């Protein structure tokens, strides 16, 4: 038997860790995410101003030394409000995204792995959710329940898991037929073993990408609801409610009221799609 010479190029997983940081989209995405997260959670402490203090007689001031982002119609410091609003938005949107991710993943896997009738039932209920624009359903349910942080998390979580579930299900069914899965089953791997070891690992890029998109979607959903007065309830400020108050007195051209929340929402959503695409490019190359 003739033996083989050593293979010319062996590329283990660790060899290309460096490529993470040359991936420009991913790096910008992470930078933007920090630009959103740090001020929202630490900004308030550092800036030290009480966002809900009413500075009488100083309503609707344009940005000045004393008020870097000006004051709102009640005379409150907009910069402090943007920090506090950011915190309020994120402590609801992030857990909601996590909830949607977990529910979506399990629902999708159960539907793909389980018996055919379960798949048909789960898919039918899924279609009902996806048949309607998410915001319409959100508005409807938001007007029903008393809005607290927990109910909002449940609400947004339960609306956005549907699209991930369908994605996971379709992807799992596609991957289930691949040769290496059949080989693993032949070696004795059971359904859940195959799902845990092979399917999730090979779906990791799809899950990572859509996981980050989910964060963007939840921030959008919460801000939209707050903008419509059905999200974070006053007196707690949030990016959406700040924008709404700006629109309220748009005739007075309060551009500084728009600037703060607008930039933060844009940065948050952009960060989530950039990180998503960065991961996609990063994983896409390998799987």
């Amino acid at each position: 038997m003739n033996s083989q010479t050593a293979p010319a190029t062996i590329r283990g997983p660790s060899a290309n860790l460096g490529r993470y940081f040359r991936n420009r989209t991913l790096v910008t995405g992470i930078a933007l995410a920090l630009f959103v997260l740090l001020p929202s959670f630490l900004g308030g402490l550092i800036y030290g101003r009480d966002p809900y203090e009413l500075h009488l007689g100083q309503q609707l001031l344009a940005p000045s030394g004393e008020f870097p982002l000006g004051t709102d119609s009640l005379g409150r410091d907009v910069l402090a409000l943007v920090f506090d609003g950011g915190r309020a938005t994120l402590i609801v949107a992030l857990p909601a995204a996590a909830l949607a991710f977990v529910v979506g993943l399990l629902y999708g896997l159960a539907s793909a792995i389980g018996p055919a009738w379960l798949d048909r039932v789960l898919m039918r209920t899924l279609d009902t959710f996806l048949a309607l624009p998410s915001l319409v359903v959100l508005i409807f349910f938001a007007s029903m329940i008393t809005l607290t942080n927990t109910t909002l998390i449940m609400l947004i979580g339960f609306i956005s898991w549907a699209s991930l579930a369908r994605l996971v299900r379709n992807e799992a069914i596609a991957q289930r037929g691949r040769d290496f899965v059949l080989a693993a089953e032949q070696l004795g791997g059971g359904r859940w073993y195959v799902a845990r070891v092979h399917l999730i690992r090979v779906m990791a890029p799809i899950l990572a990408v859509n996981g980050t998109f989910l964060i963007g979607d939840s921030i959008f959903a919460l801000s939209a609801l707050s903008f419509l007065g059905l999200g974070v309830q006053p007196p707690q400020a949030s990016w959406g409610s700040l924008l709404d108050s700006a629109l309220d007195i748009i005739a007075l051209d309060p551009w500084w009221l728009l600037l703060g929340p607008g930039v933060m929402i844009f940065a948050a959503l952009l960060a989530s799609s950039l990180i998503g695409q960065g991961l996609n490019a990063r994983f896409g190359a390998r799987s």
Partner: protein
Amino acid sequence: MQRINIMATLLATALATHNPAHAEDPCDTLVIPPGAGISGPSDVTALNFLLANSQMNEAVAGMLFTGLINMDKTDQIDYAHSIASKIEDFDNGTRYRVTMHPWLWSDGKPVTSDDVLFTWETIEKLGDNYVAAGEGGIPDLVANVKALNSEQFEVTLKSPANPLWFELNGLGQLTPLPRHAWGNFTADQLYENQSDPKFFSVVDGPFRIENFVMGRSISFVPNPRYPLEQTPFKRMVFKFVNSDGAELQGIAAGELDLANLPHEAFKAGNSVANSHLVPMAPPFGYGYIGLNFKNPKVAFFNDLAVRQAIQDSIDEKTMIAALWHGYGVEVYGPVPPVPPTFLSPEAKAGKFPIGYDPAKAIALLNQAGYVPGPDGIRAKNGVRLEFTLIVPSGTSTSLMMAQMMQPGLRSSGILMHIQQEDFNQMWASLIRHLSTWQAYTLVWSTSPYPSGETIFNTGGAFNFTGYSDPEMDRLIADSASKPGLEALYKYQDYASEHLPYIFLPDTVNTMLVRNGIGGPDRLITPAGGYNPQLLTLNRKACHAAHAFHAR
């Protein structure tokens, strides 16, 4: 490829045909956001005043059907602008004979006493569904109503009543309705079409309905057969707007003719082009804090000294200065000070048992045994003077008032927390007399004759606080039954001293009016009368304003 440029040309032609200079003269139409001058923006949802459930619905109904009795600026009957020309009372206030002006419906038929009878029959048919059931003795105090001849009718009560009270609060509800147009409708049918313009084609007020676009706008045209002042405009449109800011935007863009100026935009309001500010007369009502006397956690509210200390710790003057730029009236009793018609002699002289006196508040609490704790908050046998005030979300004024009271109360040793709640949920818990809430703040618009009959008497329809005082009950009953104003004055002074409510100033609206429109101060009367037909037009000034926009 050609599909794309077809669409481009379509869009271009649409834009080209929009000529900024309107075809008709913009000054022929008056555009008002409903609620301007009264309250915040609110839609018109119903036209039948028997079922109208909001101030704005009542106002619109008043424009279609002239009231049997309308009040003037000093809150007294204005016979010149009412259908009633004379009211005589007999048998110690048990029988009332009303004589009517000659009046015509918009279809030419005369308005007769039979139409008043029809209104009364309908009120009886509606029973609990009648929106103002229980006010002014209508319907349970009335024995019968009969027509003497086509211009006169007589109302007989079951027991004697103070004529002034019954005429203002009760008789005013019997506005005539066209029997020949509505005759055969059942109560349910009245509900079905309470917002259907076709049903209200026969009217006797200054306006007739031209069009009603649900949820968006309602437009009127003058009723030629209305005998009193006719509006100079060809058309009037109530454009529903959903926020104060949007009203401001409407003025700036030339779409609206007058608007409520939100207090926060007061400074900016001056700078809006082609318009000027007009402060309105204060409304006939007052702000208040309702205290839950039935809630064990805040039992100290039942102690008069605590209530007086709270009232003495509230600096109404600075509130008015900060929130409404000085346009506002301090209120220390159940009868709004403007117009002073029903004020008791002491109130008129400005002598009130309670005012803003922080030192007195501290003295009262010390005397009553409330000892300040380590953090300055007073307590008596273990119970701290601490409570939560519920504020309706949506209006920023009540939130700001609550926040301005906190420091004053704290310095007197009383800790007040603020919690915002949606109005509907808040009202639902009040209605059910739940004992979970501690204190709430709202605005109360008093009836023309300011008796406290539904709010302070034991078991009153709107007495949610659980306040019950035999002496107060007696005084209220007298003011409704005994003639003259003596009983009303005693009730006022007693309430000012015993504070069933903590009294607060009410919001005074400032109007932003486009140049060319005159007489906004005559738009509203304290008793809630709404008379847009009294607004005047200076066409030249109006054209100048609109010309600015017709580029």
